[in-house]
């Protein structure tokens, strides 16, 4: 069971990275225009400020 002392911190760390990424995406306004982002991917124009 000593393996737990490695596996648990590793799993928590990975989860925390995911959480940090989610919080960052909220902070940088990535949920403000969900329809727009879905459609912009179809545009062949270079988007120089993708976060809007």
């Amino acid at each position: 069971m000593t393996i737990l002392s490695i596996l648990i911190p590793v799993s928590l760390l990975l989860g925390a990275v995911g959480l940090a990424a989610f919080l960052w995406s909220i902070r940088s306004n990535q949920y403000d225009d969900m329809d727009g982002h879905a459609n912009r991917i179809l545009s062949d124009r270079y988007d120089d400020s993708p976060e809007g």
Partner: protein
Amino acid sequence: MTDAAYAPRAACPACVGLPEGELERATASIPKGGALRRMVLSLPDIHCAACIDGVERFLAVQPGVSAARVNLSLRRVTVTVDDPSLTAGDLADDLTRTGYRALELDSATIAATETDKEGKALLARLGVAGFATMNVMLLSVAVWAGATDATRDLLHWISAAIAFPVIAFAGMPFYRSAFAALRGWRLNMDVPITLAIVLAAGLSLMEVRESGHHAYFDAALTLTFFLLIGRYLDHRTRAAARSAASELAALDVLTATRIEGDTRKTVPVDALRTGDLLFVAPGARIPADGPIIEGRSDIDRAMLTGESLPDPAGPGDQVSAGMVNLTGPLTIRADALGDDTLLRQIARLVDAAEGAKNKYTLLADKAVGLYAPGVHILSALSFIGWYVATGDLRTALNIAAAVLIITCPCALGLAVPSVQAAASGLLYRMGVLVKDGAALEKLAEVDHVVLDKTGTLTTDLPLYATGPEGEARAVAHALARASLHPLSRAIAAECEGEAPAPITDITEHPGEGLSATYLGQPVRLGNARFTGATAEGLWLRMGKDLHPFTFTHALREGAAEMVAGLREAGLHVTLLSGDTAEQTAHIANTLGIADWHAGATPESKIALIEGLSAQGRRVLMVGDGINDTAALAAAHVSMSPGSAAEASRSVADMVLVGPSITLVLRARKVAIAARKRIVENFQLASLYNVIAVPVAMAGYCSPLIAAIAMSSSSICVTLNALRLRREPK
């Protein structure tokens, strides 16, 4: 156009194709160093990637525009401008000419709802709760799978270390709301929620300190997570409605033209003072109450009184803010502004009507009123029962906590918001803006519909009925094309595409009619006095010949269908209009409405609705005019077409943005379906409690059973709510 535009040409392959010097010319015309301003335009018709590209490309090359960014979800574009002379109106006109219909939005009104800080905070709490729930659930699975002794204690301690800070942070909205309710000696849904979360976490900590078998950290976190989903859905629904409503409000940019000596200046209505002389162009809205000083015209009072035909007006006649000047330029003196205008007086009637209205109790609040005391009593009883039976405080506390957790109102907290989010999303796609969830519940109960006539059942413009043929028709067409008067516009619309007669010297005589010369003889189109006819109506005089015209009122698209549908559904329909008895009776007969009232004032409209409410009727009022606003406020639930006056749109519970008035019927069907889903969800939740509570009280509820029961009931109610995504037949 930022400094990037000056970068070496070859860096961007697309720029290589630009003609020599194009880039320099494009950037040279932009004055550098000007203060940046942001302006917002509404783009109601954009829908795809090509639209985004088209709008952004077009705006980017406009001189004075430094950046443009389309938001497709909100159908808006935010433009950053560095040229102080560029106005939002100009940009909107330019965009409309290129094929993307654009409307100017009042940026001050929009700014209030633009940043959704509360929504972001809720989403962050939801994310943190989700992260913690998943991790603790993983650790709990290990415990359920059979971890023992030191391993179990270790897993429990790690769970506690994750759960406590997260519960403190993520559950904050519930604690605040519960505290506020308790301080006012009330019980709301958040009181049992808070108690369940805090007790579950606290008791589990005590258990873990004594190396106990059962810890409910996962249950406390799952509760927080599911309930936050409900809270977030609820917030999204309200935020979407608020943003749509503020967009409607921002569309009215209120300005007036003030006469200052020899010059005319456009100023905001707020900046006007009593005694100012104002110029009102034909076709413009009158900005203030006061007498006409100079000029003659026809005044359209439909928004204020519901009268469908305009009245002639001249010097000395009183006009009010909200009326529309049709035919001639007017100079008026502002006598009443702000608080003294007719609009403000109607607003006071609205306040009074809202104050007199019975407070509506939401279905969810009714359920909580029954539910919250029941839960606490059950939990207390299990505690007392077990303590008396076994004398073991720890067991008794554990079972009491298990009862609280298992009965925690997940279904209530999630069921109602998920149904309302699904229903208002569906209504939004249909073209109905719902201001709050209560409106949806109230609409399902309606048994009496009161309809306004002008602008609600009929269009604002009259419709051509009969008139002369041949030469006279062509002459009338030519005359009518020159005027903004609704009757002229009706004739012009009827003769659309035909060749008008060659006439010269067209003169408009405001309040009377039009005159011109046709083949050397004078012709006149106008009222009886102006043309020398003996009977009332609109006449065309050519030499000695008189030709009469008659008009009817065009029914709005779907009006007949809607009235028939409402009656079929067993609702009583009343037509209530400020127009003349003759016009009202005509429309009532066409639509087959037996119960109609003409010549209604704002006061008598309220009186009628309050009378119906006193008889126990639940009244839906549909109206668009300023004279309807007080009645809209007095009714159980109210709707306004999107074309309505700003005042009535802001009072109405729902705004019909789509073109057809049959939306009233369709919205009612959705409301009834939503109510049915909510009741079903309550039944599901009760069924689940009936099974789970005895198990918990008997002491058989392990954390594993609690986790399964809670998740499955939450998923059941959410899936049931999602069935509303399609329009009911």
